[in-house]
């Protein structure tokens, strides 16, 4: 990888109690690089160290040992933060502000000119489907809407690096798909995205590389396709075949590869997310045929 945007070396983080005694070792010497322009997934069960890693990257926590370089500098360099967008796991917003005011507030924190701030806020509210709720206080938002406004504020400064902690948690499948499309769009525009999520299907769909953490240690790291590929097996997918053709193909395979060859034959199933989105799209379309049990 050339010129990584994030370099983590031998990173350790020990949380201590009030008396300074070690309580939890959240990270045990983590090594990690994230390149520019990639979507990087951070996976792991609860307590694996994902959120701690993200907070260390953002300078919210300080490493016990090891080093972090982000965008060529220290995570605690205030100037660098102008190039970062962050969506936390929980939505920590001022409940009294409306969606639009929230975005304008963060735009002002980034020092954006008023006209630019307003344009970007309007654009992001539209992009994330929040335009109808622009004048509603954030305190009245559902969890899914809070995730959307969280993502919008993370993008208000058009950041070079976007760090998202569970961005699709609590979202419906349509919202999830919109977010994934948005992440792909960010990648097309050359942005770097770090994504932490429990939803493995989402990570699989959008990430170029992933790192799996468990008990504060790196358990796997690499491109998603390379990690998931079963290189000892082969899959051929065709249009529906007649039983005779299947028998003929099986006979040919056993003849060529030997009688011990394991072969599974069946109809490939679509993913539930695709099925759901197709179904909802048909229901929304006035000409679409109704589905489900018929009388």
């Amino acid at each position: 990888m050339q010129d990584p945007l994030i370099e983590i070396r031998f990173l350790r983080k020990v949380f201590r109690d009030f008396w300074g005694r070690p309580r939890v070792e959240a990270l045990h010497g983590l090594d990690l690089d994230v390149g520019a322009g990639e979507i990087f997934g951070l996976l792991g069960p609860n307590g694996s160290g994902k959120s701690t890693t993200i907070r260390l990257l953002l300078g919210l926590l300080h490493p016990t040992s090891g080093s972090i370089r982000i965008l060529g500098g220290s995570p605690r360099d205030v100037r660098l933060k102008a190039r970062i967008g962050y969506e936390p796991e929980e939505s920590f917003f001022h409940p009294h502000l409306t969606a639009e005011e929230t975005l304008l507030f963060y735009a002002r924190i980034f020092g954006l000119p008023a006209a630019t701030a307003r344009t970007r806020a309007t654009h992001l509210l539209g992009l994330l489907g929040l335009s109808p709720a622009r004048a509603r206080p954030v305190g009245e938002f559902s969890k899914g809407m809070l995730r959307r406004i969280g993502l919008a504020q993370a993008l208000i400064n058009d950041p070079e690096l976007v760090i998202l902690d569970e961005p699709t948690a609590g979202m419906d499948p349509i919202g999830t798909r919109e977010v994934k499309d948005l992440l792909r769009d960010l990648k097309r525009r050359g942005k770097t995205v770090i994504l932490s999520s429990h939803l493995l299907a989402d990570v699989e769909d959008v990430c170029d590389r992933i790192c799996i953490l468990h008990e504060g240690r790196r358990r796997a790291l690499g491109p998603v396709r390379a990690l998931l590929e079963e290189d000892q097996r082969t899959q051929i997918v065709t249009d529906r075949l007649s039983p005779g053709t299947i028998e003929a193909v099986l006979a040919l395979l056993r003849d060529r590869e030997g009688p011990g060859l394991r072969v599974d034959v069946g109809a490939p199933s679509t993913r539930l997310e695709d099925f759901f989105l197709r179904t909802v799209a048909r229901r929304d379309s006035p000409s679409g045929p109704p589905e489900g049990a018929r009388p």
Partner: protein
Amino acid sequence: MSPLLAVARNFCREVQRRATTAPFILMILLSSALLPRLAGEDSSLQARLQVAVTYGVGFPVFLIALFTIAAAAGLAREIESKRIQLLVTKPLPAWQILAGRLIGVAAVDTLLLGLVLASFAVQVRIEMARASRTPEETAQAVERFFTPRAGIPAESTPSDPQRVRAVMEALRSGDAGAFESEGGLEAVARAVLRRRTLPPGASTELVVRGIPQAHAAAEQSSILVEFVAHSQDPSAEPRFELEWSAAGSAGAVVSRALHGVPQQIAVPLAAGPDGTLRITARNPAAKGGNGPTLLLDPLQVEALVPEGSFVRNVASAFFVVLLECWFLAAASVCLGAIFTFPTSVLTGLFVYGAALSAGFLRETLDLFAADAHSSGILPSLESWLVALGSGVLRVVPSFARLDPLERVAAARSIAPAELGAAIGSLGVLGAAIPVAAGAWILRRRELGRAE
């Protein structure tokens, strides 16, 4: 808009939309309107106006100070609710997070104090418009409430240090020494050496210099003098008479005074062109008779010279109150960066209490230090407490040194130099040091826990 002002504006918006804001404002207005009614219907106009300042303004100001502490310490809630995490991950230096909140609190305080000021103005108008007021009452109120004055004390000769030490020794060996700290004992010794003793029939001349030419001119026929006199035997003679006359004037003023109670009188003005006023105080009791012997401390005899207008004095007083709130907000915002919300508020209240009673606390600590034993565990604890208390008092400014509302109630002017000193100590240092300290801590503080 700068990020700093964005934080401030966000705070103001939060206050504006909070459900508790309207009842709080109502409480301020009600207390401001109703507390002046504490003064009885038969009270003089001057007394009613003084009550309007002391309670009608004083209590709302106390409420505003409480709001200031809680609102500024709300930074701790921002940290506890993790809302601060989003701000800290933006290009916003820690000091701007604190200073933004401070500016927001100060803006709300300004509005609230503006309401109190408006309510006070209405109270004054209502009092002045009462039909039952006599012209004499109104004239007295104009002279003793609406005309702010600066006090110029009578001259006194500096005490010889050796004599001061000798008096201190004498006091220490008597009953008085047991109840006074070292500093207090020295002050008493200096007062003893300074004071004039007036047996029956005796008189003394007091000189007040530096009366401005405008007041030394003959336009005014008299000048207000405030004095505190003592009877040598207050248990036998708590009430006595003092006769005052100014050099060169024909008349004399006989004043009935109470032992140790400040008293204002108007004496004929006879200040010379050099601004020097010579007044004579005489014990009018028959010479050789068994009337009381009176004691007069020159530093407790002041010529009250009109200085500035009432409106300017009230504006200065409210500005000083705003500076006090500004300091409290800075201290509380710093505490909010360190402690939890309840601890920050309680510590903020402690700072407020210490600032209000700094003089009393300092005297108590001096006394405590003078009384401390030399060895053992308890004395060590005492010394440690004294050192801690002295340290706190060194950091916390004294609000009692310039009590703005007391000045307005007593028609004492706030001099520009005093205002400048308040701006320096409360407005600049009192805010810059806590904000810098709070920002330093917030930068080093970890904002996240093991999960």
